[in-house]
């Protein structure tokens, strides 16, 4: 477990990180989110012992950062780049050796990962001869080859096509299920939403929102349900439990089945988003309307992380 307490980093004119505390548990993916210049990179650098915080402490498994720490962290910086003129395998081995792996293990692990990421073919090619995506894969390998306990990934998906994003996502999830402590910093909210179990949102160096993803969604949810039905739904708006209704122009993306439904029954389906009063439980509202409409879909609408992000950042400014 990584515990950061009262972390502050002052630069000459600005406070990049202002009294921030959080903990990252093993086996969970911790999403460090925030707009550009929020202080994400500074936090990462202090975690990695690259820079020293002005005040505050960082403990990993109960110990302050020391030289032993070097070998158990894996880091993928946001700006990518490797030794362009060097051979792929040499670069991977160099970083593996720097993380204290012995030669033999480093070599077999390198081969394993090259194969897994489908770039064995480029083993003996110079980095500059590789495509950008493949260079990123090599860099990803250098971040995780030594089986680090703590993995820090800064925008790991930037520059990857959807297929490779999926590949990397699977690897990150499997690392997490192996009990690794993973910190993921990103602007891509959909990525964070799919991967992260905990969210830590900062803006201008200060924490603005944190907690588990489900908690946050609950906290920022507006008690809205989506109903798809057959028949005349005009009465819904006048129910006492309803604040407002909104026609949603598209059917919820709940998979193939729904689309089939749409094509079979065509125009007769209506879809509305209903915002309920705060004290109304979605299941009670369902009871109210069940007898009066033929309901084909009923779901609680969760706010997207994207929306939460924008709202929270706006409110904090």
């Amino acid at each position, binding site marked *: 477990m990584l515990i950061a307490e009262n972390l502050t980093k002052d630069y000459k004119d600005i406070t990049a990180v202002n009294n921030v505390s959080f903990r990252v548990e093993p086996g969970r993916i911790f999403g460090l989110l925030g707009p550009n210049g929020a202080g994400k990179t500074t936090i990462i650098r202090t975690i990695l012992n690259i820079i020293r915080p002005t005040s505050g402490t960082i403990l990993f498994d109960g110990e302050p950062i020391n030289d032993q720490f*070097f070998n158990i962290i894996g880091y993928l910086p946001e*700006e990518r*780049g*490797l030794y362009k003129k060097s051979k792929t395998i040499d670069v991977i081995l160099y970083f593996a050796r*720097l993380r204290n792996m012995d030669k033999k293990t480093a070599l077999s692990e390198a081969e394993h990962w090259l194969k897994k990421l489908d770039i064995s073919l480029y083993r003996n090619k110079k980095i500059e001869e590789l495509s950008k995506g493949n260079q990123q894969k090599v860099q990803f390998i250098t971040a995780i080859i030594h089986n680090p306990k703590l993995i820090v990934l800064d925008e790991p998906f930037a520059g990857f096509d959807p297929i490779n994003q999926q590949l990397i996502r699977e690897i990150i999830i499997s690392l997490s299920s192996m009990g690794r402590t993973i910190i993921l910093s990103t602007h891509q909210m959909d990525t964070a939403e799919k991967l992260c179990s905990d969210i830590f949102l900062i803006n201008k160096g200060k924490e603005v929102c944190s907690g588990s993803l489900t908690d946050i969604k609950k906290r920022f949810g507006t008690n809205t349900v989506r109903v798809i039905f057959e028949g005349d739904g005009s009465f819904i708006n006048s129910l006492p439990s309803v604040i407002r209704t909104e026609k949603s122009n598209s059917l919820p993306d709940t998979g193939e089945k729904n689309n089939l439904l749409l094509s079979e029954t065509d125009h007769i389906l209506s879809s509305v988003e209903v915002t309920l009063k705060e004290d109304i439980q979605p299941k009670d509202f369902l009871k109210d309307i069940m007898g009066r409409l033929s309901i084909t879909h009923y779901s609680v609408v969760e706010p997207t992380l994207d929306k939460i992000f924008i709202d929270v950042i706006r409110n904090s400014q």
Partner: protein
Amino acid sequence: MKKTFIIAKWEYIEKIRTKAFIISMFVTPAILLLFTLAPTWFSRHEEESTKAYGIIDTSGIYFSQLRDNLEKIKLNDDQPKYLIINLYGKNDKLNDLKKSADIDVVRNKLQGYLLILNGGTDNIKINFRSKGSGSFEDVGKIEGIFNKVKNKIQLEKAGVDTNIINSVSKYVGINPIKIEENGKESKADFLTIFFSSFIFIMLLMMMILSTGGMLVRSLLEEKSNRLIEILVSSCSKKELLAGKVIALSGLGFTQILIWGVLALVTARTALIPMEAFDNIFPMLGFFILGYVFYVSIFVGIGSIVSTEQEAQQITSYISIILILPTIFAVSAIQNPGSTIIKILSFIPFTSASIMMLRLKIETIPVGEILSAVLIMVISIYLTITFSSKLFKIGILSYGKRPALKELIRWMREK
């Protein structure tokens, strides 16, 4: 310690493979050899054929003796070096003679001609007319021989005995001999000294600039793509710095080794005079001190710059400082004891080069050598301390080059 070694090995192997290194390894000595040997070689070889010179001696006193003496000088293949032609006829007007002789020179029929006016009087005046300013060597030789001939003729006229004249006109040269403390003697020939010390200064300069440039570029690359962040999150900055410096010194010594072998091989073929290897060990000592001093400066510079342009700018300042000793080289050889040379040999930036030069041209008191070494060692210690401080903070600061005020703040930071 282990990581230092891993870094050093990586840097060494990756750099030694680069084209820049391989080129500088072989091209540098080639250029130096060319610069030092080509002029002598050319001047030796271009005169392998007989040259035709004319003489207009209006008095007619000197021509025949001058011709006899000049035509005695032989080329390597035993052909006469000069062919001397009399251009003077009693009935010709001087102006017409000059005109036709000038045309001959312009048309390359003659290399040049000697115009002797007022011969036999104290107002004697001689011009050497040729295209360009004439070969220095030839003019010098002709001048020497003319004066000898003139003296002889005058003495003969005064009735001096021929034996005395011959004895008097014998030219005695002076051989400079360099005495060393251990009683060894060696011939001190200006050119040999100049070039053999010059070669070392130039080698030092080229080596510092090529490896120093390499270091700055590699730091710049790691900084710009943030590889440096991965590096400093996998090892301490001290290990990283030490690894890089060790690798760079290794590269330097590899160069010396290869150059040394090249030098020995060429010395055997007599391209380089053996005198160049006199005092080789103390010279190597200063070479290494100078090298380490500048490399540690380059480490500091590499840490604070963040663009290629900045790096080039600062590197060019350093190369100016490096070239400085070569400017003083000539005056140092002509006047080894001068105060300015003494002062320069105790300034760390010039000390190594100047001391290498002085080791060649004079016997330096042991005290001076030791104090120069001491100054270098202290300066190296200081530059390494400063540079590693700059390194520790500089490698992680991007963007604008820090102002002097900021640099001072970095120095104070622990």
